[in-house]
Structures are given as C-alpha cells and as structure tokens.
C-alpha cells in the first residue's frame, strides 16, 4: 500500500470562536491522539461543525491556539494545513470525472500527473470503486459518491481526516454499511480522524472516543462505555442512550462509592468524584426489572405495556415519578397495562449525577 499516512495529533488550547456577537465556541481544550478516531457528538447548533472547521483552517480562531502534529497552525489557512475533509454534501466537483476529483488535491500540490492518477486509482480501489474513474459524480449513487469523497480526502495522506456528518445523506441501511467501511479504512491506515455526527448510535459504533458537546462547550469526553456507564450530567445521561433522571437523597460517601436513597430503597454505587450535597440518579430503561410476582421492591403502576418483538416496553408510575423501562428478556411474561407491580433497580443500569 503506497498510500501512507502521516497521522498527527490535534490540540486546542483555549480556543474561542465568535461570529459577531454569537459565541459559537466557549474556551475549548481538546486533545486528539495520533491514530485515534474521535467523534464530536451533540445536538444541532452546539458547535461541532465550527470545531471541525477550525481544525481544517476554514475558520480562524477568535482566540487561542491550535496545534496539529505538535505544530502551531493557528494562523495557517486551510490551503497550507495538511488536513482533509469529507463534506456532508460530499462536495464532489461536478465538472470533473471521479478520478480527476480524487487526484485533484495531488495535482494542485504539484504531484506529477501520472503519479497522481495512479494514486487516485489506488484510492478508488481502496473504497471499492476501481473502474469507476471515468464516470462523472452525477453518474454514481449516493453511497458511491460518499466513498469517492473519502478516497479524495485520504489519498492526500492528511495528518487529520475530518468528516462532517458524512452519512446524513444516505438511507438507514447504507449508513451502517458505509460507517463500517470508514472505520475500517481509518484503522487500516492508522488515520487520525475527527468525525462529526448528531446520531449517538453512529458515534458509539465508530469511535475510539466520543466528545459530547453542548451549548458551545464540551459536556463530557470518554470512550463509548464510559459515557454510557458514567455520565457526568443529566444531559449526557439522556443524550447517550435513554435515561430516567430522578431525584435522590444522598445518604453518604464511602471509599469510591456513594449511597443513595431512592423511592425508599437504598443503592450503593461506585463513585469517585468530589462529595456534594445534592444529586440525581440516572436510571437506564434496561436497569429496571418489572415483576408482578415479586413481593418487595418499589411499587409501580403499569400505565402502558407493549411487546415489540425484541423487547418489552413499559411506562410506569412510581413514587419517583414516571419511569420508562425496557425488558430484553423476551421469555418473561408481559405485565399487563393497568396492573400493579414491583420494580427492582439493577446496579449496572444506574449512575449518580452529582450537582454542585
């Protein structure tokens, strides 16, 4: 494989971006390691694209310093940064053939025409489009266009590959397929990649690490598992998977644990953060087991129950408020709507959310 990668790291130091009076990014610090695929995840308008464009050099930082591969690139424009980007709209040049599109970056960087073409062909082969070179972008399907866009970005051997919602124009089935391919290429080439999406499932599926953003700043960053199991706020708990966030009473802090009183039951959870007066409890829907046969636990009224084939869903009225529960045990009998039941909280489905 002659497409070699020169993956680099990315650092943001107190980077601020303002558009006039709108602050698109509050002081932001970011560390992305070489060879890592990091996803920026968050609701629309939270600043993901802005972050990506700052890495690309398409926007200038209002304050702060940006490093790529350890070098300060804050004042370099996109042209002079060794970063490639895959656009949401693909941005394939409609007047150039596929191979011309892929070799464009090489040609403008003064790579001899022959070599550029060979490399482009190779890039196309890598994304499974060998032989499509002479077509025009409009003669390809959406998924193929997507892959051309990836090939075009990758053949330049960028230090960082940026992808801005690369799958949003594809239908659901294709989306899964293409995201696997992207992940595969990234790992094969050892690329540093920053991937923007607002779809948490997609983020969990492709990332080494996820950075969740909210309201122009980072809400939490970690591996998919960390985020799911140890959300640090109600926002994260709710954004990464579903969660019932309920009030709880802090009984006390132990060695790496916290004891809580919820709905009359006491639970002890692993917790290593600072002690605090108040907090909430996030309960994953799968963390609630509903049973009519049990005789103890927290009393709950089943206001709605539905069998969905691969799971059973419940809406429950409890002393803690309304709860949403999912039971994956398909052999269990469905507790019918309108009946009374008891629920149990499983420890692995719970997370303590301290409040300052």
């Amino acid at each position: 494989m002659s497409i070699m990668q020169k993956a680099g790291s990315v650092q943001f130091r107190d980077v601020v971006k303002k558009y006039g009076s709108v602050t698109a990014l509050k002081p932001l610090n970011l560390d992305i390691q070489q060879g890592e695929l990091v996803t920026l995840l968050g609701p629309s308008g939270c600043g993901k694209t802005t972050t990506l464009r700052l890495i690309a050099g398409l926007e200038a930082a209002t304050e702060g310093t940006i490093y790529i591969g350890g070098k300060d690139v804050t004042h370099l424009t996109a042209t002079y940064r060794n970063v490639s980007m895959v656009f949401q709209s693909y941005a394939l040049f409609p007047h150039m053939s596929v191979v011309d599109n892929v070799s464009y970056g090489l040609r403008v960087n003064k790579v001899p025409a022959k070599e550029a073409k060979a490399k482009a062909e190779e890039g196309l082969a890598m994304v499974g489009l060998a032989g499509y070179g002479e077509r025009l972008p409009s003669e390809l399907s959406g998924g193929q266009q997507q892959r051309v866009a990836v090939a075009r970005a990758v053949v330049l051997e960028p230090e960082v590959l940026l992808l801005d919602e690369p799958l949003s124009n594809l239908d659901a089935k294709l989306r899964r397929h293409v995201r696997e391919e992207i992940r595969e290429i990234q790992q094969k080439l050892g690329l540093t990649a920053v991937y923007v999406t607002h779809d948490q499932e997609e983020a969990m599926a492709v990332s080494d690490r996820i950075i969740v953003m909210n309201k122009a700043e980072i809400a939490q960053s970690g591996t998919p598992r960390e985020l799911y199991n140890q959300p640090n706020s109600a926002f994260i708990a709710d954004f990464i998977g579903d969660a019932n966030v309920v009030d709880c009473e802090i009984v006390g802090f132990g060695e790496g644990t916290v004891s809580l009183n919820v709905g009359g039951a006491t639970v002890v959870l692993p917790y290593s953060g600072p002690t605090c007066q108040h907090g909430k409890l996030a309960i994953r829907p799968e963390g609630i087991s509903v049973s009519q046969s049990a005789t103890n636990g927290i009393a709950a009224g089943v206001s709605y129950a539905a069998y969905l084939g691969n799971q059973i869903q419940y809406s429950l009225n409890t002393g803690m408020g309304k709860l949403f529960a999912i039971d994956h045990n398909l052999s269990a009998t469905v507790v019918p709507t309108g009946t009374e039941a008891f629920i149990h909280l499983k420890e692995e489905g719970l997370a303590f959310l301290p409040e300052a």
Partner: protein
Amino acid sequence: MRKTIALWLAAGIVGFCIFPWYSVDSGFWSFSWLFSEFLSEDAAPALFQALLYGRWWFVPLALAFVGIALSFAVLKDERTRAKALVILSITGIVLLFAQGFAIGRTGPELFNDALNFGSAASGQIGFGAGAMLTAGALLFILTTSISGLGQGRGDAFIVGSIGLIIALVVTFVFYPVSQILIRAFEASDGSFDITAFFTRFFSSDIWSLACLAGGKTCGPAWNSVFLAVLTGAGTTLLGLAFALIATKTAFPAKKLLRVLTIIPIITPPFVIGLALILMFGRAGVVTDVLHEMFDISKSRWLYGFSGIYLAQLLSFTPIAFLVLIGVVEGVSPSMEEASQTLNATQWQTFKNVTWPLMRPGLANAFLLGFIESIADFGNPLVLGGNYNVLSTEIYFAIVGAVADPSRAAVLAVVLLMLTLSAFIAQRLWLGKKSYATVTGKADSGQHSPLNPALKWACYGFALPWAAFTAVVYSMIVFGSFVKLWGYDNTFTLDHYIRAFSVSFNNGIRWTGVAWDSYFTTLTISTMAAPLTAVVGLLTAYLLVRQKFAGKNMFEFSTMLSFAIPGTVIGVAYIMAFNTPPIELTGTSIILIIVFVFRNMPVGVRGGIAAMSQLDKSLDEASITLGANSFTTVRKVILPLMGPAILAALAYSFVRAITSVSAVIFLVSARHNMATSFIVGRVEHGEYGIAIAYSSVLIITMLVAILLLQVVIGQRKLRRQNRLQTSNKNKELASA
C-alpha cells in the same frame, strides 16, 4: 509571501528604471523606447528622468523603493517586515500620485511657489507604462504585506484582488465623479462657493412645482422623478404579467414572447422613439388612419410625457421581465400550497407567502426601471417636446449654445442624488440579503396554473403590448428599406448600400460610411466584454465567498456606478482623464474603461446570483485539498459559472454597443462608435440610414449572443444534465 513580494518588487524596479514613465507617442508596443529612445526625454524611465532631466520629484519615490528593498532584505521578523512594507508602499503610492497631480502639463498645479524649481516649470505629461507598472507593483506589495499581517485569512490573492478592485473603482468611478462634484461647487469665475452651490442646487429652475399649481411645467428634477416612478411601476407590472404568462400558463407562443422581450434590450437608442413618431406623430401612419376613419383630430400628444413614457415602457419592460421571471419561478408552488393546506385564504397566502417572496424581485425590477428611466437620454431627446428631464438638461447644459458646465455639474449632482436615494431606499427596504431570495431555487418544474381571472388579466395586459412591440419593430425594419419613411415608401436598398457598401477593385475596400464606426464598435465591445466579466465576477466572488472588514462599503461602491447616469459619467470622464496624470481622452482605452465600469455592477449581480447557487463546500473542498484560492477560482468556480459568464459577457457586449449617453462625449476621430454615428444621422433627419445601421447592429448582437451560447452554452448544457440545475440560467437573467 516573500517570493510574491520579491517578484512585485522586481516588477516595480522594472517600471521605475526601464519602462518609459510617460506615455510614448510611438506606442508601447513599438518598443522604440527600449532602444533608440531609451534615454530621450519623452521615453526615459523615471530614474533617468530624475538623473538626466532634472525631474527631482521622482527622488522621494525612488527613496520609497529603496526603503522597500532594504526592509525586504534586512528585516527578518515576518510581522515587522510586513508592517514596514505596508507603510512604505502606502508612502510610495501617495508620492506617485502626489507628483502626478502636483506637476501638471504646464508646470506645478498645486503649491506653485514651493514646487516651482528645477524642471518643474516645463511640466510633465500623463502616466505611461512605467508609471502604471510601478503603481501596480506598489499596490500589490501593499496588499501582499497586508495579507502577511494576517488580514483576509493571510491570502495574498484575496487581499490583492480586493486591493485591485478598490484601486480600479476609486480611479475610474470615484475620481471622475469627484471631478463633477468639484465643478458643481465652482462659481463662474472659478472660485469655490458653497452658498452659490446651494442656491443653484435648490433653484426653482430645477425643482419648480409649478405644474401642480396649474402652471406650465415643473422643474426637470420633478419631471424626471415623476416619469421614473411611473416607468418603474409600469415596467414592473408589464414585466410581471409577461413573467406569469411565461411560467404559469400554457401560452403557446412563449418562444416568440421571449424574442419580443429580448429585442428591445439590444436596440440602439432613438430607434424606438423614431418608430413611435412615424406611427403616432401628428403625421404618423396610425394618426392618419384614425383621422380618416374616426375623424380623430391629429395632435401632438406624443411629444412630451406621454411619448417618453410609451417609449420607455417599450424599452425597459424586458428588463423587468428578465428580473421577474426568476422571481416568479423562485416562489415555489409547494410553499403556496403549504400555506393553503394550513387553511390560509388566498389573500392570506398572497400576503404572507407570495408577496414577501416576490417583494425583493419586484423592488429590484422597480429600481431598475426607475434608474433606467431617470438616466435615459435617447427617448426624451427625440420625444421630449416641452417636457424637460434632467438627463437632457445636462446634455444641453454642456453642448448648448450657452454652455454652462457648472450648471451641468449641479444637475448631475441632483440626478446622482435621486438615483442614489432610490438605490439606498431599496437596500434599506430589502435588508442586506436581497439577492438570496431573488435567486430562490425552484423545487419543482411544475408550477400551479394561474387562477383564470388572473390569467386573463395577464393576457389582456401583456399580449396587446407584445403585439404593439412587434408592430413597432416591423415598422423599424420597414423604415430601413424605404426611400423616405412616411412619404416615399418605395422599396430601396440605398440606406444599406450607403452605410455598408464594399468595393472590390484592388482588394476589398470598405467604402460604406458606417464601416469605420462599426469596426471600432465591435473591437471595443469585444475588448470590454471579457474585462467586464472578469472584474464583475471577481468582485462577486469576493462578496459571496470572502469575509473582510468593510465588505458592505465595498459592495456599495462597486454597485455605485450603476446609479450614475451615462451623461454624468461621460462628462466626468472628460473632466478627469484629459489631463495628466491620467490622460486617456481620444484613446480607445477610455471607451473600454467606461464600459467596463458602467456595466460591472451587472456582472457583479449575475456573479452573485450564480455563486450563491454553487454550494460553498465546493470551494472549501478544494481549499482543504491544498489548492489556494486562485486555483480554486480557476479550476472549480469558473468552470461551474458558465451561464453567469455568458450572461455577463453578453450583457456587457450589448451595452457597449447600444449605449450612447456616456460615449457621446468620449468618442474621437480615431475611435468613433456606432451609436454616436447614428445620433448624428438622426440629428440630420437621415432616419433611413440611421435605422438601417441600427438593424445591422441588432443582427450583429443577435449573432454574437448566439455565438457565445454555442461556445459557452455547450458546456452549460452538458453540465445541466449532470447537475440538474436547469433553472440556473433564468436566475442569472434575473440578476
């Protein structure tokens, strides 16, 4: 960055030390300045002008260059160097122009006492190749250094382009217009007098409202405004009717309708006015028939407001149509349907959906009609009667029996003020982003049909009008083939023969009287068109795609020349460019420049419309792939802008051929233009040849536009299939 500066520094040194500083009689391309005349007083470069001919005023400029070279070589820190270069190159530019303005053709013009030593008394002539190259070099050293300071995202091409456009607009729009303003403040004895200006400015000669009080006639300012408002409204209504027919009905002869709406745009001035006289004048054909059949008395109603208004409606409705067809298409039927499914009544739908979407387009169409009308010169000249308007008053204040340039200047200021107010009012009313809505995407090709009442209203309004236009044009064709239009209607080819005969004894000889001006016109238009397109589209690119401080001012100033009527520009150009340092009168370049800067706003508009249709991520993709902005423009944007380029080229070509008011003062013996020739014929009552010539011009323009279509349009077609952007063309036209 260093390399760019080094190259421009070298260019500057060539300009200062090798190229002839002044314009040389034998012409630059003869290169005699490089050999036999290198050290002659006429052709020597600035360096030797200073050393050999005592032109001491080049010394400070030379020092500025030395400073630039030194800071470039010595200063290591990038920012310090850039700062030093910015200061020094600004100094250089100031010095260059200061010496040009201070020492005139016959000695010092400013600070006579202080400067009158050395050879200053013998004066100097206008800038030549050396001065231009030096000025260019200084400008680009400046812009490159500014970009080195991090402005414009540090992109030398962008900052350079901005600098270039600003320099050009300042030199060829602001500077000449300022000359007019200065004139307006000049009292008859040459001194400056503000009170005299205000007295003249507010004089009842200009602003009289006597006609309202039952008097004879109002002042030309009110006449112009009144006419312009009605023309703007009339053309907008007619244009809207045509646009609705073209997009929302199944009218069978749409193609023909298109042709009828294009031809007036490529009609030289006067022609419509003449045709109207021959039809509706007191002795006109129609008048005769009406008299015979209905005993309607023959009158001179055509001369005055009614005639001008009719002619202007005929001339300018097509412009409104072209703007509005894009707008009507932009109001997507699904939006109207959406509103109706939300239980809005038709009126509510109109008020809340259709109207807000069309408002910018209607305002644009109105503004265009307003400005075209107020600047129109040909129609009032032929049909004005006793209805005086500003444009003709200006003309006669300059060429009349008692020429009064300062009155002309005052009138010009009034005219300028009116057009600018309209322009500003429109901007305020629409807000900044007017064009984005004007070029809305049509999301489906299928427009809902018009409601029948509206449809018939449109037909009733527009079709008679179309028929009328057709009749006027057949009259014109007819007129070119008869001996004496109106009196002796025997067929003849005389007019064509006199204008365009060719004899073949010993080689081809162009013996017809029109050939000279015809060739000049074609040459100049062909040179002006691509330059206009380049300047216009480059400006559009900067406006749409780049962010920089002062962008709003920048946009406004590039649009300004649109609001300056031709007569004013023509006069301003004579005042500004007849004397050193920039001496251009009598050359073809002044004609080219006047066309480029008059038509540039349309190139800009077209470019903006087209570029807002191109997804910004295309350029960003190119940039992130390592291309610089110049390469991006060249390889990605330009190839995708075929229709916009076509429109800009066609428009500026046509305008260069048909405009008269600006060129009438600028043509010279060597470079005479067709329209000015035609005006001469009309003045002498030789309508036949004037109309024959006009017909040939119309055909020339049609052929040229078709050729352009073939050359550029071909690619457009291919691309349309690829991009499915079939509506792009129409939007362009609307710009």
